[in-house]
């Protein structure tokens, strides 16, 4: 049965710098990287290529020794120019200098309906698309040996300045359907596609079959797949679910229909410091310098791969993360402000209606920098997290259980149901400025490796 979920809790962060729905004419990116650090839970990455090797799009470049059937593939064809390692030889980046025209490995077409499950799993794992499947609990790359009780796809993104799926995935209907058909074989239960109940579905999702369509509406984090799972088919101890982004579904579909690993991707270049905020057609792991340099309103900025709530700071020459559909550029906030905590203002964004902060009167969009607006403190104000987490979970108690490393409490209070992105908004609104996403990950790791 399809479900209709209406959420009240949450907070929409309205920022300046939304990407215009058009493809901009940026100089194409030259280099592309695959970063093992993007894959949470990737334990022992092993590189399969050396500097100087030539690869095609879809050539295996890396795998995880702990889950060796899943390969991580080159997004583009070209020459491997760098294998960057950090402290203790930790693998950081495998960089490929792209060819002018991209050539693909021929991985063989297949009809998901006629393949048996094992053959399909093997094909997806060897075809480079497997890491798109994320397992819940824990939010790590799915294990091909498991069978999930359902697969969840969130068809909309409510994060600040998020890329518009309708524009990003336009014209990919055929591949999306093929991907859904393949996913249907992987689970013992249903494939849930959750769409925004407040607006019309984009064309790519319009005529999907073989999936259960649910409608979810409300402020952010309504688009978070974790919140949707909580209301549609919650995770209990011992349950296993998989999630995948619509882009990942299309990648699977392309592998089925075309027999290639296609990493082409439309990403949004957004943020208040971007002069020409628009979309660009490129490949996964693109170097962002050609989109950012010469496209800035000011010099002192932070470039973020992903959105401002869950993203990661990258350098001006950095690469877009594997799971990210956008980059966001905002001002750095490393300045002191005279009586900054006291002065009345309508231009500072706040969820709270504390006196002297009148942002709730401002119906426009905000330009927000990276200043933390205060120092870290113990939890003092109660009931704040509860207002922005639309789940039957008591976040304050869950956080305290993690701090105390109390395994039973963590389990019972719902740590199986959340990962970093679900508490990102809690982290934003917290007046005590704690790093809650990091805290949640440390709790998840305790449970995972215990």
């Amino acid at each position: 049965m399809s479900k209709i979920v209406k959420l009240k809790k949450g907070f929409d962060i309205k920022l300046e710098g939304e990407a215009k729905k058009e493809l901009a004419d940026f100089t194409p990116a030259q280099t592309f990287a695959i970063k093992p650090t993007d894959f949470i839970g990737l334990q022992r990455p092993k590189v399969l290529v050396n500097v100087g090797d030539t690869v095609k799009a879809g050539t295996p470049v890396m795998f995880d020794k702990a889950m060796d059937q899943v390969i991580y593939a080159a997004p583009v064809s070209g020459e491997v120019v760098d294998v960057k390692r950090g402290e203790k030889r930790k693998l950081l980046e495998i960089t490929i200098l792209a060819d002018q025209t991209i050539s693909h490995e021929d991985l063989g077409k297949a009809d998901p309906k006629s393949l048996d499950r094992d053959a399909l799993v093997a094909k997806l794992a060897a075809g480079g698309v497997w890491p798109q499947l994320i397992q819940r609990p824990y939010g790590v790359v799915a294990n091909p040996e498991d069978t999930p009780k359902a697969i969840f796809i969130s068809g909309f993104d409510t994060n600040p300045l998020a890329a518009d799926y309708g524009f990003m995935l336009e014209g990919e209907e055929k591949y999306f359907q093929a991907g859904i058909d393949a996913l249907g074989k992987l689970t013992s239960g249903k494939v849930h596609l959750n769409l925004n109940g407040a607006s019309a579905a984009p064309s790519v999702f319009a005529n999907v079959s073989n999936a259960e369509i649910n409608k979810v509406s409300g402020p952010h984090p309504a688009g978070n797949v974790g919140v949707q799972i909580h209301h549609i088919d919650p995770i209990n101890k011992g349950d296993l679910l998989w999630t995948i982004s619509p882009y990942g579904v299309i990648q699977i579909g392309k592998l089925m229909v075309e027999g290639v690993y296609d990493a082409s991707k439309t990403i949004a270049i957004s943020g208040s410091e971007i002069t020409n905020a628009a979309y660009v057609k490129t490949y996964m792991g693109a170097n962002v310098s050609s989109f950012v340099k010469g496209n800035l309103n000011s010099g002192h900025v932070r470039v973020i791969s992903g959105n401002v709530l869950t993203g990661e700071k990258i350098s001006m020459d950095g690469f877009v993360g594997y799971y990210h559909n956008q980059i966001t550029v905002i001002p750095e906030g490393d300045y002191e402000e005279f009586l900054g905590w006291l002065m009345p203002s309508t231009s500072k964004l706040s969820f709270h209606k504390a006196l002297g902060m009148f942002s709730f009167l401002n119906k426009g969009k905000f330009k927000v920098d990276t200043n933390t607006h205060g120092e870290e403190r113990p939890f003092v104000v109660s009931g704040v997290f509860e207002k922005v987490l639309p789940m039957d979970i008591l976040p304050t108690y869950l956080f305290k259980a993690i701090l105390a490393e109390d395994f039973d409490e963590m389990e019972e209070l719902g740590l199986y149901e959340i990962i970093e992105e679900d508490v990102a908004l809690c982290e934003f609104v917290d007046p005590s400025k704690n790093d809650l996403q990091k805290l949640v990950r440390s709790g998840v790791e305790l449970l995972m490796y215990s």
Partner: protein
Amino acid sequence: MKALKNLFDSVKPNFEKGGKWEKFYTLYEGHRTIVFAPDLTTKAKGAQIKDATDLKRVMITVVIAMIPALLFGILNIGHQHFLAVGEEATFLDKAIFGLISALPILVVSYGVGLLTEFIFCVVRNHPISEGFLVSGMLIALVMPPHIPLWQVAAATIFAVVIGKEVFGGTGMNILNVALTARAFLYFAYPANISGDQVWTYLGDKMAVDGFSGATALGVAYSASNDGTPVVEALASHNASIGADYSFINMFMGWIPGSIGETSVLMALVGAAILIGTGIGSWKIMLSGFLGTYVMGTIMNLLAVNEYMAMPAHYHLVMGGLAFGIIFMATDPVSAAQTETGKWIYGLLIGVLTVIIRVTNPAYPEGIMLAVLLMNVFAPLIDYYVVKANKTRRLQRATV
């Protein structure tokens, strides 16, 4: 501003590692962050932007919410004084008299409290927390006018050390810090904080004939013992000097009492600020008043004496109930922290206040003990609310 920044920059090396005041870095940092919001930025991973509200702003909002009560309290000290000694006085006379009484108490509670905090910050090397901004004001507002200042100092030190720092500082305390200060005085120096003589300051003058310094709660209790209807006793009390304890007078706050506690109206202005800004829990406030009213009504039904027969709504305006529920019970650290728990917590505070007031002659001001008692029980209430949540989550598994 630039000059101020330069000043901070110029003394900074002394406080940094290796400097001569290295130990006092936390004090330096604390003061700098008050003048200048710090230049900290978000980390590389996680939320890249943060809400503009921090604990400092939360705390200052509570302080602002208490200012109407403080201003009224100052005026009322003067008002009560001139009524009692039977002199005509202008608004200005009253305000100045009140200021002379209240300001030293405020200065001592903030000065001594912050000094104690600073010592702990330096010794333990943890950042200066803004929690005392609120506690310092609260302590002053629950003191009788002209309490000996050394007692205020002693109570403040006790509250900060035993009420807060032994538990780990702001955010970790079990009891409301300001109430701890008051309870300390209540039991250590009862002569200066209870009875009929401390609520109106006469100075070296004599009270006029017919004046009695008893509080409304005291009047109610003794009237009940005499078998007089409480409402009548309140209305005739001090009527000869034009300061009767009518409902409206008690609501407005023109009665003797602690500095900031007497006016229900001003407490409600504070409540409006706290609720409007989302800082104070409206659930605790509403259920607190509701509990008082419900228990008052139950007392009416049982009515074996005149105090119990007093109309329930009188409980709402007598003593420091409104102030206690609005500013003390809603302290987010010592109150129940779950949303369901807040309803229960507030309700029980109201209920307990009436029970203590009506049945226990030793403690006419029930709200203080009720809040302290419920502070202790708040974790238990939360425990059961959290347990209910866990049970719900477990039941779901079978579906």
